[in-house]
C-alpha cells in the first residue's frame, strides 16, 4: 500500500486551451480538408495549443463521483515556456498549497501548514492527478505530434477524426487516442483514450466553450473528462485568461511559491 502518486505537473497543460497559431492567424479561415494529410491536420491542431509567451488563468476543477458527490477545487495558474506555477485557492483547507514546475525534472511543492518548499521528482506518467481523471501524461502534454503518429479515420463536414498511435519508444500509458479536430480553426474538441491494448475505451475528454482571445488565442473554457471504468467525471472550467503579460522569470521561484495567494 505504498502507491503514492504525486502530481507536480502544472495545470496549464490541461487547460485544453491554446491559440490559433501565428501561421494561421486570427483572420485565417478554416481550410478545407482537401489536400491536408493526417500529419498536417495534427500539426495545425498542435499549433493552436502554443500561441502565447505567457498566460494566467483561474481553473475550477470539479470531480463528480459515480454516486453524484462532488469535490471542487479552485486554482490560479501562471505559465511561461516550460515554467508553470499553480496555487490552490479553494477549498479553504488547501488554500496556499503551491506547485511549481521549472522543467520536466524540477518540481516543487509548498504546503502552508508545514511552511516548507519541497523538491519533488515524480517519474510517473500514468498516475491520476489530484483525484481527477487526468493523468500526469494528460497534464504534461503540450502537443500530440511529438509523441503520436496520426492516421485519418474519417471526416464529416465539420470535423476530422484522427487515430493517434504512440511512436516507437514512447512510454505513453495509452494504446491509442482518437481525436476529433474541428475544421474551423483546428481545435481538438474530443479525445478518446484507449488502454494499452488499444481495445478498451478508458475515458473521453470533451472540450467546449471555445473563445477567441486577443484575436489569436483560441481557448476552451470547459473540459469534461468521463472515466468509463468508474463513471467518475472531472469538469474543468477555465476563466480569467490573460495572455502575454510579460511575466518575469523570477515569478517562477520557490520564494514566490511560498507567498500567500491573493
Amino acid at each position, binding site marked *: 500500500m505504498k502507491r*503514492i502518486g504525486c502530481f507536480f505537473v502544472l495545470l496549464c497543460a490541461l487547460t485544453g486551451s491554446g491559440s490559433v497559431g501565428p501561421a494561421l492567424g486570427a483572420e485565417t479561415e478554416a481550410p478545407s480538408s482537401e489536400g491536408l494529410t493526417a500529419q498536417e491536420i495534427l500539426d495545425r491542431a498542435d499549433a493552436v495549443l502554443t500561441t502565447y509567451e505567457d498566460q494566467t488563468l483561474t481553473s475550477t476543477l470539479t470531480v463528480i463521483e459515480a454516486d453524484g458527490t462532488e469535490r471542487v*477545487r479552485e486554482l490560479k495558474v501562471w505559465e511561461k515556456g516550460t515554467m508553470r506555477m499553480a496555487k490552490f485557492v479553494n477549498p479553504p483547507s488547501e488554500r496556499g498549497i503551491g506547485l511549481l514546475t521549472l522543467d520536466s525534472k524540477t518540481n516543487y511543492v509548498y*504546503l502552508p501548514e508545514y511552511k516548507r518548499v519541497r523538491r*519533488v521528482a515524480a*517519474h510517473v506518467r500514468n498516475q491520476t492527478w489530484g483525484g481527477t481523471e487526468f493523468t500526469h501524461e494528460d497534464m504534461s502534454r503540450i502537443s500530440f505530434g511529438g509523441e503520436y503518429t496520426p492516421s485519418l479515420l474519417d471526416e464529416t463536414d465539420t470535423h476530422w477524426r484522427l487515430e493517434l498511435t504512440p511512436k516507437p519508444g514512447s512510454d505513453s500509458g495509452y494504446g491509442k487516442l482518437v481525436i476529433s479536430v474541428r475544421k474551423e480553426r483546428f481545435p481538438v474538441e474530443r479525445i478518446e483514450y484507449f488502454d494499452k491494448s488499444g481495445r478498451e475505451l478508458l475515458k473521453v475528454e470533451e472540450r467546449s466553450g471555445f473563445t477567441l482571445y486577443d484575436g489569436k488565442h483560441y481557448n476552451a473554457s470547459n473540459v469534461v473528462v468521463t472515466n468509463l471504468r468508474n463513471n467518475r467525471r472531472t469538469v474543468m472550467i477555465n476563466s480569467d485568461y490573460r495572455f502575454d503579460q510579460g511575466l518575469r522569470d523570477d515569478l517562477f521561484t520557490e520564494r514566490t511559491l511560498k507567498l500567500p495567494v491573493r
Partner: protein
Amino acid sequence: MRLFASTVIRYRSLVLAVVCIGTVWFAFHAATLRMDPDLLGFLPAEDDDVRFFRETSERFFTNEINMIALESDDIFTHDTLGDLRKVTRAVQTVRGVRHVLGLTNLLDVARDPDGTTVVRPLIDPSEVPTDPAELSALRKKVLSTPVLVGNLVSKDGRAAMLTLILDPQAEKMATARAIRKAAVEAAPDRHLVFGGFAMALDTLRSLGTRDIARWVPLTALAIPLLLFLGMGTLRGVLLPLATVTVAIVWSLGTLAVDGMELSMLTALVPAVILILGTAPGIHIMVCCHAENPPGGKEVVERVLARESGKILLAGFVIFAGFLSLMLSNLTLFREFGKAAAIGVFWSVALALTFLPAWLSYLSGRPVRSASLTSQRNQRVTVALTRMADLVQRRRIPILLAAAVVCLGSLVLATGIPRHMDMLSAFPRGSEPHQAERMLQDHFGGSQVLQVSFRAADVRAPAILEQMELLEKRLRLLEGVRYPQSVAGVVKELNLNLNHEPGLPDSLAKVHNMWFMLEGQAFLDAILERGYGDSVVMARIGGSDPKAIAGALERVERLVQETIPEELFVVDIHDKPLPVRQRFLDELAARTALKASLDIRFHTGRDMPVGELAAALGRLLRNPPELTPADREVLASRIEAFLLSGESDVRIRRVDRIPDTAGRLAAQESVSPDTLEAVLRESLPPGAWTGSEQDLAFTAEFIRMLFAQRLREARLEQSMNITRELAGLGPGGELDPALAEDLAASLWGMNNSYLSVDEATWLRVTGRERPWESRVAFEARLTGLPVINLKYERILFHALLGAVFNGLVILLALFIFLLRSPGAGFAAVSVLLFTSLPVVGAMSLLGVSVDNMTLAFLSLAAGIGVAYALPSAAGMAEGPVEGKGRVEARAHARTTRARALLVHVLALAPGLTILALCALVPLHRLGLFITLALVSGAAGTLLVLPALLGSRTPDGTERTGAPTPSASRV
C-alpha cells in the same frame, strides 16, 4: 376420492389440454428465471451486522478483490520479476479489471540524500534489473518495508502476489476467465495460483460444467433405464418422468412469476421434484400394473379412486413440512421451503391428473412383464410377503437395530463440525485449495477482517491515531497478520514529503498533504472517497475454524475495550501550566504505549511502560537543549536555506552566508526579533536584497529550523531512553522495521495536539467536556470471517428450529390424519430413521453444517414421509372390494412395497453416480440422498410394520371394519 377420479377421467381431454397450455406458459416464464447474482445472498439481509458488512464490503470493494500468486525459489531474479511484470501488464488490460497492484507497477516514494522527495516506480518499467547487486538491493528494500511484506511479497521473498480489484459492474466469471487466460499466456511456464471470489466462482462454474457434462447424462440415462427394469414397460418410464418434467417446468415457472431468483438452495428444487415427485407417479403406475389389464379408463379410474387419497395425504404432509420452513428466520430457508412446497404441490397435482388422464388413453391390453401375475412379479410378491412375515416374527430385533441406528446417528450428530468452510464446495487439490495454502504459507491467510471507522472525517489525526494504535495491537494478537490502514499511508507520505516520521498532529496538515493522495485507486480498498469511512484491514491466519473464531473474538474484545467512541482534541500548549503538565504526561504515556507495542512486536520483549512514560514525561517537562553537534547541523541547514531559492531575501554577498548561518545557529534565544537582529548585523545593507518583510520572513523561517532541530533532538533522546529501558543497548543499528516504527511512535512526543477520551479529560482538567473539540466516531469489527462466524450460529439455530418445527408439524399431521397417536409416532419414527443416518454419515465424513444441510435433511424427511405415510395409511385401510381380507391386505401391501422398491431402485443408483462429481455439493447430494432413499425404504418396509405389528393404527386388533380415518383417506 371416487368423485375426484371420475371427474379426472371424464374430463381427461381437458386435463391434457390444460397441462399442455400450462406447460408452454410456465416454460415461457421459467426461461426468465435467473440465478441470484449476489454471492452472499444467503446471508440474512435484515441482520444489522450483515447489513453493516455488506455496506462496508461494497464501499471498499472487498468482494471484488482477487489475487494472483506466483511462487518461485526467489522472486527477486530478473526472470521472475520479468514474468511478474508480464502478468501484471496482461491482466491490467483485461476488461472488468479496475486496478492491479503488484511489485512491478508499484510506486516508491523515497527521499534522496539532498532532501528531494522522489516518486518513481519501484522497478523501472522499461527494464527489470539484471545486476545481482541491484536485485539484492531491491530485495532488501522490499523485504524491509512493512507495508509490502505480507501484502505483495512473502516474508521469505519466495512468493509474490498481485492484487486485482474488479469493477463491481463487471461480469464476474467472464472477467475471471479473461484474467486467468491473460495471466497464463503472459507467463506460460510459471505456476500461477488464482484466488478471490470471482476466481472461485469461475472454478465452481468450470467444475460444475465438467460434472454436468460427465455425470449428469449418465444419471439421466440410468434413471429411465432402471425405471424400465422396475416397471417393465415403456409407459412405466415415460409417464412418471414426463409428469415430473412438467412439474419441474411448472414449478420454475411459478417461481419466475412470483419474482423469485434462484439461490444455492432453490436451485435444488428440480432435484427435489425429481426425487420426491416421481414417487406418486410410480405409485400409480405400479398400482395400475398390478391390475389386469394395466390401462384403460376403468382401471385407471379405479386405481385413482383407491390410491389418490394416500398420495394426497403424503403429498400434503410433505408440502406442509416444506411450508414449515417459512417459519425460519433465514430468508434462504424460507425461499427454499416455499419453492420446494410449490414443487411438491405441482408434482402431486400432476401425478393425480395429468398422468391418469394420459394413461387412460393408453391401451388396456395385458403387460406380461409388468403384471403381478407374471412369473417374475410373482417371485417379487412372494419375497415381499415373506419379508412381511419375517418382520412380524422378528419385530424386536428389527426395532432394536433401528433404535441402535437412530441413537448411534444421534450420538454422531453431536460431533458434526459447526464451522462453515467456504472451501468445502471444492475438491481437495483444486485451485481454491491451492490458493488457500499459498496464502496461508506466504501471506498470513486468505481471510480478511476489517475494523470500520466511521466519522465526519476519518482523516482527523485523533482517528488516524486510533487506527495506528489498533494496528499495533492487532499485530500482537495470535492469528492476526499484517494489519494496514490509511494511517500507514499518511505516515509514509509525511515522512517522505515533510521529513516527519509520525502522523501529522493536525487535520490542517493532513488536508495539506491530501491532494497528493486523492484519487489513488489503491486507497479505495481502505478509505471511502467521501472520507466518512475507513477500514483497518488484517489477515486472519490459520485454517482451523476454531482458531479463526478465537482470533475474531480477541479482535472484537480489543475493539470494544480499547477504542473509545469519542475523543477530545487538546491544544496542549494552549493550557495553563499545571493542566499542560498533566496533558504532557498523558502525551508521554500515549507515546510510551505505542513504543512498548512496537518493541513487543519486533523483539517479543515486554518493557516497563510506566517507567518509559515517566522518563518521557520528564523529557517533555524539560525541553532538550541543542548540543554543539545540533548547532552544526542547524548552521548547515540555515546556510543551505539562505543559498536556496526558497530564501525570502537574496544574499548578494554569498561569502558572508557561512558566518551568518553560524552566528544564527549559535543563538540561545530564538525569537524572530533576535534572529532578525542577527541577520541585520551579519548582513549589512547591500549584502542582501528584499523588503523588510522579506527579512522578517527569513528570520521566522530560521526560527522554524531551530524548532525542527529541537524536535529531532527530542526524538533522538526519546529513542535513547526507549532503547535503554527496552534493553536494546544505546548504540548500534536497530532492525530497520523496528527503527521506523519506533521513530514514528516517538515522534508523537513533538505533537502540539493530543486526543483524549472523556475519562482522561475529566481526570486531567476536572471540567466539562469541551464539545467544540469533540471527535465522535464509531469503530466496528466486520468482514467475511466475522459474518461467517455469526452466520454459523444463526444457521445452526435456524436448522434446529426448522427440524423442530418440521417434526412437530409432521407429528401433529400424522396423528390427525391417521387418527392414531401410535401410527403418528410410528410414521415419525420412520422419518427419523430416514433422516438420522444422513446426519450420522455427515458426522463420519466430517461434513460441516452449512446451507446444503437443510436441503439434505428436508429431502430425507420428504422421502421418509413419501414412503411411510401411504404404508401407514394403507395399514389402516379395510379390505379391497371383491377380495378376501387377508389377500386384499397382502395385495395392497405388496403393491405399495413394489412401488417403493421401484422408486428406490430407479433413483438410488442414478443418484449414486452424482457422488462421483468433483463439485462437493453435487457429490454430497448424490451420497446423502441415496442413503436417505435406502434408509427410507428400510424404515418403511421393516421398521414401520415392526412398530405397528398386526395392530391397527388406533391400537385395536384389526377387525376388518374400516376405521373412520381409513375411510376418510
